[in-house]
């Protein structure tokens, strides 16, 4: 029972009074971040990384805190989906389809508790799946050489571009932007600056945290200036919150199926939680058929996307931890966190830093239980927080972002760069260019180039080497298929229209 021994190790790391305190704080903070409209898991975690870093927490504590915030934000996202019809982030979009109608029928409390339980089931099963699958995948990953890694990174960009966006060219361009930015700085092999334009501030390269906070948090300010903070008032009443046992029992198979579908979608590199919640919802909708009444506010329509979404978030950790390839925007931010803590994900992580990995897995389980216990009695407090007006919230978020980035290097240059990324993020999102590939490009650019260079050095510059093993060829085929196939599947995989008042 290797897994149980490892899990015991993980709990011995993660279950001290101080880390438990951090887990509770993180869950509380995360739920608030997720619930606030305009702040999702990605930007919430991104803003907090530099601040955690300056607090001087050790790796395990920081990891516990941030994973609790991450899971908390995934939980909290459903509150604004159900009560305001505003998804906190893209995966929560599917929850609005049945959650908001259910809330309008006066069953807001039931919908909130049910989605909380569904989130718990999805996240728990995904964490179990992670424990079973990740060590196996880590063993396979030992066969990966530079050619395989190059193809793997390519696969991540292709599937991300293919599945998560409406226009392949725009997604690929976004990835190129990120990769291009990652090239800036002093070259590791020659020691000479590349593409810096002689600017001394750029010799260190551009910190991915600056880009993440700019693209996700600062860009949001411009969207709120454009909309003048409208559309964030609560339209439905929340009465007494009870536990709807009947609905929970009635949706148990839905939750299990949705968790399975979500987990598989999460494992695919680049696909992530949006696809997980979408597939889970659509599967349940087709199983229930016309009579199921999906879209009119049925409990199954709330449980399925929430279980799928949270399960996919857990599944996305499998490729992130074993191969260093994140499956979604939020896992990209978590990868950024690991890199800030000087932990390099990859197959060796499971053997060399077993305490960190299993500590992380244990803290996921802890966070999950804390969240369930916290969410049912305290849901009213979180709902109160939704009434914080945008004209206080957004300036506050901006100022916290500034302090966080300023604390990294104490340089005005990073702050100006962050504002620049904010403007870029606004324009890109207006033009329907996804911003997650940009982040992924900045995060992975250095490693992808490294893999290519080692492959070229090993083969003496022969490009055929990139296709020299069955694994590499398989990854190339998957990458091309993942990029091309959605062009033809777009008609089939049409998203259902959002609910309007």
């Amino acid at each position, binding site marked *: 029972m290797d897994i149980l021994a490892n899990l015991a190790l993980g709990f011995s790391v993660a279950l001290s009074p101080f880390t438990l305190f951090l887990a509770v704080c993180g869950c509380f903070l995360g739920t608030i971040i997720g619930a606030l409209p305009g702040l999702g898991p990605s930007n919430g975690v991104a803003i907090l990384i530099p601040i955690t870093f300056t607090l001087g927490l050790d790796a395990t504590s920081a990891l516990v805190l941030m994973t609790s915030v991450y899971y908390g934000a995934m939980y909290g996202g459903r509150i604004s989906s159900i009560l305001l019809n505003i998804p906190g982030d893209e995966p929560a979009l599917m929850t609005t389809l049945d959650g908001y109608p259910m809330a309008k029928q006066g069953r807001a409390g039931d919908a909130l508790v049910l989605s909380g339980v569904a989130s718990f089931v999805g996240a728990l099963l995904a964490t179990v799946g992670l424990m079973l699958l990740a060590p196996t995948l880590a063993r396979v990953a030992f066969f990966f050489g530079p050619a395989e890694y190059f193809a793997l990174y390519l696969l991540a960009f292709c599937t991300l571009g293919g599945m998560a966006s409406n226009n392949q060219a725009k997604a690929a*361009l976004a990835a190129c932007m990120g990769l291009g930015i990652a090239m800036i700085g002093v070259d590791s092999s020659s020691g*000479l600056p*590349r593409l810096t334009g002689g600017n001394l501030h750029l010799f260190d390269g551009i910190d991915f945290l600056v880009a993440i906070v700019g693209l996700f948090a600062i860009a949001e300010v411009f969207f709120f200036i454009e909309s003048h*903070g409208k559309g964030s008032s609560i339209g439905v009443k929340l009465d007494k919150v009870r536990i709807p046992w009947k609905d929970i029992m009635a949706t148990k198979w839905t939750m299990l199926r949705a968790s399975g579908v979500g987990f598989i979608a999460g494992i695919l590199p680049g696909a992530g939680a949006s696809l997980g919640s979408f597939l889970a919802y659509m599967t349940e909708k087709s199983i229930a058929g016309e009579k199921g009444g999906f879209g009119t506010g049925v409990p199954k329509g709330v449980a399925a996307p929430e279980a799928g979404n949270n399960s996919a978030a857990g599944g996305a950790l499998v490729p992130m931890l074993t191969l260093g390839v994140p499956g979604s925007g939020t896992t990209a931010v978590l990868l950024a966190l690991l890199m800030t803590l000087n932990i390099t994900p990859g197959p060796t992580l499971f053997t060399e830093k077993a305490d960190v990995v299993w500590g992380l897995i244990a803290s996921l389980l802890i966070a999950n239980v804390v969240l369930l216990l916290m969410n049912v009695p305290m849901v009213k407090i979180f709902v109160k927080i939704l009434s914080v007006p945008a004209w206080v919230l957004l*300036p506050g978020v901006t100022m916290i972002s500034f*302090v966080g980035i300023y604390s990294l290097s104490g340089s005005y240059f990073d702050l100006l760069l962050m504002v620049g990324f904010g403007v870029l993020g606004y324009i890109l999102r207006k033009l329907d260019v996804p911003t997650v590939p940009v982040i992924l490009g900045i995060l992975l650019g250095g490693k992808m180039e490294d893999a290519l260079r080692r492959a070229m050095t090993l083969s003496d510059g022969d490009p055929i080497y990139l296709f020299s093993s069955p694994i590499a060829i398989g990854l190339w085929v998957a990458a091309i298929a993942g990029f091309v196939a959605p062009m033809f599947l777009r008609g089939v995989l049409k998203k259902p229209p959002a609910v309007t008042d």
Partner: protein
Amino acid sequence: MASDRIFGLVCLITAVAYIAAATQIQTNLFSGEFLPKLFPLLIGGVAALCSLTIMFKPDPDPDWPIGRTWAAMGVAVLVLCIYAVMITPLGFILPTAIAAGILSYQISPNVKPAIAAGIGLSLGLFVLFKFALGLGNIVAYKVPTAAKLWDAISILIPFVGH
């Protein structure tokens, strides 16, 4: 249509400039002649190809904001830039109060709540960072000199700053 064509053109020019810059990358004996240039050249090539695709197959235009909103966003960017350079010489409290107040006004144009939001956020965050999180060195307040203020603001003026 037009937005995407302009966006594609801007990206194409950037990509070509990037390729040109990549061919000028300095190399030495340790890195070899070609390897430091290879990946940047590939990226530039793919980006140029994507830009051309976007130019020739544009999506429908998004709903761009009206002129007044653009002005508001321009002001916001300017305020954030000035805030970025002023936080070093002036410290945290004063610039934060002003910047947060202006941003708040841009989101919801009411003067009194905006002033309250600015002052409240500035003092609240100061207390949070200094006393709760122990980051006093980052949010310290400072008394500036005229020379330091000029140094900071000149960063934003092209060809004058450093």
